């Protein structure tokens, strides 16, 4: 017959072993997550004092050259310029995550987004508040590090234009500048010299507008 105190000691020790095993496993998980976070060098989003809302992104895939729509829960500010910048920043930095199907360089990509009224369009029936031109000011560090190639550069522009079109219906045209200056191409291929019509890029390829904003 095992004495009672020995049984109590046995069960106490068994419980302690299980507790320590559990703590060890949790510690391993935390260390693993910390290591992964070091590899993911995308910037930490600035804190936004707004609730998350379902937002549609137009996402690029290099494997098939397609743009597809996807819904994400994103916290966005209300002010339109800040909202557009935060939206595009989120879109482009997500492409830098490991396993991306349209890999882009890590780091902040969009300096600012401005909305300008397009002259002569404020009476438009479709846009009673006036059709607008969105000027996307990309960072030079992003453009210079962007993969150089026709497919990759075109898909980045289509993803940006499509996402702006879906979330800002009043935008009729999109123009790109880099570090506040006009630039011929994104990184050797896709044309940035002229504005693009804002369209749903899931179904439409890009073709830029004439310098006067009319369709070529």
């Amino acid at each position, binding site marked *: 017959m095992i004495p009672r105190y020995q049984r109590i000691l046995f069960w106490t020790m068994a419980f302690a072993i299980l507790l320590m095993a559990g703590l060890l496993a949790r510690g391993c998980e935390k260390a693993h997550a910390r290591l992964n976070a070091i590899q993911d060098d995308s910037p930490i989003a600035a804190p936004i004092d707004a609730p998350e809302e379902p937002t549609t992104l137009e996402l690029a895939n290099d494997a098939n050259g397609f743009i597809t729509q996807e819904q994400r829960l994103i916290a966005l500010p209300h002010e339109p310029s800040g909202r557009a910048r935060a939206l595009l920043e989120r879109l482009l930095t997500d492409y830098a995550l490991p396993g991306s199907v349209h890999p882009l360089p890590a780091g902040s990509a969009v300096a600012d987004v401005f909305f300008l009224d397009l*002259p002569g369009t404020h009476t438009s029936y479709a846009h009673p508040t006036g059709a607008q031109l969105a000027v996307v000011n990309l960072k030079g560090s992003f453009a210079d590090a962007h993969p150089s190639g026709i497919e990759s550069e075109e898909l980045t522009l289509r993803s940006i234009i499509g996402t702006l079109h879906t979330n800002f219906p009043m935008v009729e045209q999109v123009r790109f500048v880099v570090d506040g200056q006009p630039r011929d191409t994104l990184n050797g291929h896709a044309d940035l010299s002229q504005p693009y019509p804002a369209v749903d890029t899931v179904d439409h390829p890009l073709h830029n507008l004439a310098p006067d904003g009319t*369709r070529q």
Partner: protein
Amino acid sequence: MTRNPSRARLFQSALLLGLSCAALHAQAPNPPRSTILIDPAHGGPDNGARLAADLVEKDVNLALAQRLRSLLAERGFNVVFTREDDPPAQADGSRPPAVTTDQRAETANHAHPLACLLLHATNGGHGVHLFTSSLIPLTMIDEPKAVLNWETAQAGSIPQSLRLVNELSSSFNSARLPLVVGRASIRPIDSLTCPAILIEVAPLEGEGGAKTPVSDATYQQNVAEAIANGLISWRSHAAPAEAAEKTVTPEKPAKPASPKPAPAKPAAPAKQEDGDKP
């Protein structure tokens, strides 16, 4: 030595036959155009993509173009290049100016080729990417234009360019080379009057994630052979005479980079935006 009259008559008939054949040949219409225009993109100070520490896109484009030229010459094509080489830097370190995209378009439009191939290479994506211009094709209701606009000259050739992509796609599929097909207006494709496509070669992804780089000689040769086979098929299907009749040399603006003349419409949002730029 006696002359054999029947042999003399035979000789005369043969001579007449030969002469009449030569005369007939001279009167026959020109043989089908079989010129292929190849544009190895970038060059000079424009390196294109950096593909490896010691490899830039302009050199890969030229290497692929040279492989393609050999294969096409063997198959009876006449090949015209927009740039033959990459001029080295001069003693003072400066480089001769690159062949501009407008100059490339001029070379292409003057050659009246059966097809124009604009070659690029990249590290992004997988397999071969084929693009035609994203211009809206001219339709039957469009007024026939005596002179094409330099910026949109390709609009009249979009249907042929799409058929050319189909021919090349079949050839790439037969060669089991992965393919992405799309529309993109990368200079100077919109200024070309020939059936034109952009061919961008990306690394091959094998089983287990092993990558074959675009600099791989066997891969380049396979791509070149697929293109050459596609062009043979294109030569037999295309209607050269019809295409030649339709070809109108577009009017190139006096200053290559200058925009189109302003239209009568007052709205000029892009120009205004230039003034308002941040």
